């Protein structure tokens, strides 16, 4: 598959599929392609069957790799696909404008909304500018500033999460990375307007949660959401991050959409097109827009005070604890 940056990128488990896709493309390119209908259908059926098989049994680590596919749609792609009349709003009014978080007014379906999302960058230049989706404190402060603007005018907020984590650098520390995230967590818990948040790719730790304290939280089917990246976890708990320990860590962290749903940490899984969002971005956009529309529909008539109480109760209840009485041996 050729990426926006113009190079070919293949996930190892996708290679057999891509060989078939190449054959299909070659057949289609022939001058007498219309006489190849039967062969084309056969190849396409074979490809779909192969995709279904591979993508229905992806390991956790392979899911992480799909979530990082360079052709996977990002926040700006989804904005283009699902949003009309987008008016980007820059800056945190305190320090600067972090391109790793994109904010702005937009219309999705019949609704006017505030969009807030991590942007990782498609081209090399954009990736560097966006620090690969790792926001600085001014990014989180920009996000909150625009969310509070939305609250003032009763616009619902749509957050798109796609970050390996908040940026771990000197400037980020000096400008209060921890304070910026903490403050977002506190303030998002009490915003009096509907908030829906979807992990569209990577949901890495506090940097993801910083725009994900929402009334409805979803994950795209092949995204991940966890307290730490598999590599970070492997490096600490397995002492070394390599293909084998990354796989073990990814399994152990229960970071897939299905697992997070089962654990009650998210509300929905948004299905992706066959073979992942990078194969058919427009259909991924349709699924995302449908989820946003349905979720905001459920929330729009809830009084703001009730809305924030429900949001509070939802996060207050999260966690699993036991007592000594459950396990006398541990006394």
């Amino acid at each position, binding site marked *: 598959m050729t990426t926006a940056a113009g190079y070919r990128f293949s996930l190892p488990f996708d290679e057999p599929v891509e060989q078939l896709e190449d054959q299909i493309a070659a057949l289609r390119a022939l001058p007498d392609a219309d006489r190849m209908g039967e062969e084309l259908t056969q190849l396409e059926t074979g490809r779909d069957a192969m995709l279904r098989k591979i993508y229905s049994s992806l390991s956790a680590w392979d899911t992480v790799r799909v979530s990082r596919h360079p052709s996977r749609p990002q926040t700006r792609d989804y904005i283009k696909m699902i949003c009309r009349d987008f008016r980007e709003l820059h800056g945190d009014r305190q320090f600067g404008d972090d391109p790793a978080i994109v904010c702005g007014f937009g219309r999705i379906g019949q609704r006017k909304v505030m969009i807030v999302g991590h942007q990782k960058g498609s081209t090399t230049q954009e990736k560097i500018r966006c620090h690969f989706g790792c926001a600085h404190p001014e990014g989180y402060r920009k996000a909150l500033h625009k969310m509070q603007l939305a609250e003032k005018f009763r616009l619902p907020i749509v957050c798109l999460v796609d970050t390996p984590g908040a940026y771990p*650098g*000197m400037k980020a520390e000096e400008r*209060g990375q921890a304070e910026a995230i903490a403050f977002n*967590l506190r303030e998002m818990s009490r915003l009096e307007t509907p908030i829906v948040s979807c992990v569209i790719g990577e949901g890495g730790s506090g940097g993801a949660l910083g725009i994900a304290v929402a009334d409805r939280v979803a994950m795209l089917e092949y995204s991940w959401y966890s307290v730490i990246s598999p590599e970070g976890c492997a490096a600490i708990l397995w002492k070394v991050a390599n293909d084998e320990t990354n796989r073990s860590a990814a399994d152990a*962290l*229960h970071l897939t959409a299905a697992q997070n749903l089962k654990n009650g940490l998210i509300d929905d899984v948004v299905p992706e097109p066959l073979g992942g969002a990078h194969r058919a971005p427009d259909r991924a956009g349709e699924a995302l827009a449908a989820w946003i529309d349905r979720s905001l529909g459920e929330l729009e008539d809830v009084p703001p005070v009730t809305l924030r109480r429900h949001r509070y109760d939802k996060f207050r209840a999260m966690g699993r*604890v036991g007592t000594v009485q459950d396990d006398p041996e541990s006394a």
Partner: protein
Amino acid sequence: MSTKPPQTWAEISEAAKRAVPDGTWIHCPACNASLFHRALEANLWVCPECGHHFRLDAVRRIETLVDPDSFEPMDEDLQAVDPLSFVDLKAYPDRIKQARAKTGQRDAVRTGHAYIHGRRVVLAAMDFSFLGGSMGSVVGEKIARACEAAEAGDLPFIIVSASGGARMMESGFSLMQMAKTSAVLSRFHEMGGLYISLLADPTTGGVTASFAMLGDVILAEPGALIGFAGPRVIEQTIRQKLPEGFQRAEFLQDCGFVDRVVARGDLRAEISAIIDYTGK
């Protein structure tokens, strides 16, 4: 089936004192001085030679901060479960068992009511010696309940943080403790409650990026490491050594994220003064 009754606070604090035998010499990691254990204890575990603040476990922290015999623990029976059956090089339940045996703590925070210079407060003291003070569901739940107790009693709420961050072995559950504790503090804030956050060495990761940075007043002990990312992670990112003093308490005060750096011996007076200023 017989369960041992929970220990009383007097027993817990006595056991902690007995853990270090009399006549032990302790090495100061900052100035290399050899210090007599009893002298160090009498000086609140601050090196009399160089002022280095030793890390305190939760029991010692409470003993050095509150009026004698005033601590009334709460939620002592809460303990970790293993919701994800997490196994790395060791199984999570085994790590918990070992941490309990090593520290005598049930998890990485102790909470309760206490008095500081005669002022009634709710206190949460984290314990870095228990799995790096990591925040799992038990830490999040105990902090949340302690905050609710402070709200119910209209009492000042004090958290002493000392943590490497969220507990990986509870993955998403521990991540959500950041949102949970921040939400509970949000409500406390709206009710006009006073929350004093005291940052001890070290306070990093998900704890810093949630309740530790949300204090009405944020105090830090001298030299405490305080940050979002750990120094090693930053060094790997920027591929160079960090300057001396980076992410230390004094640096955070210079950057505007800590109100005051306060020596351990002055903390009781400091906290009671703040309580008095706020009228709580």
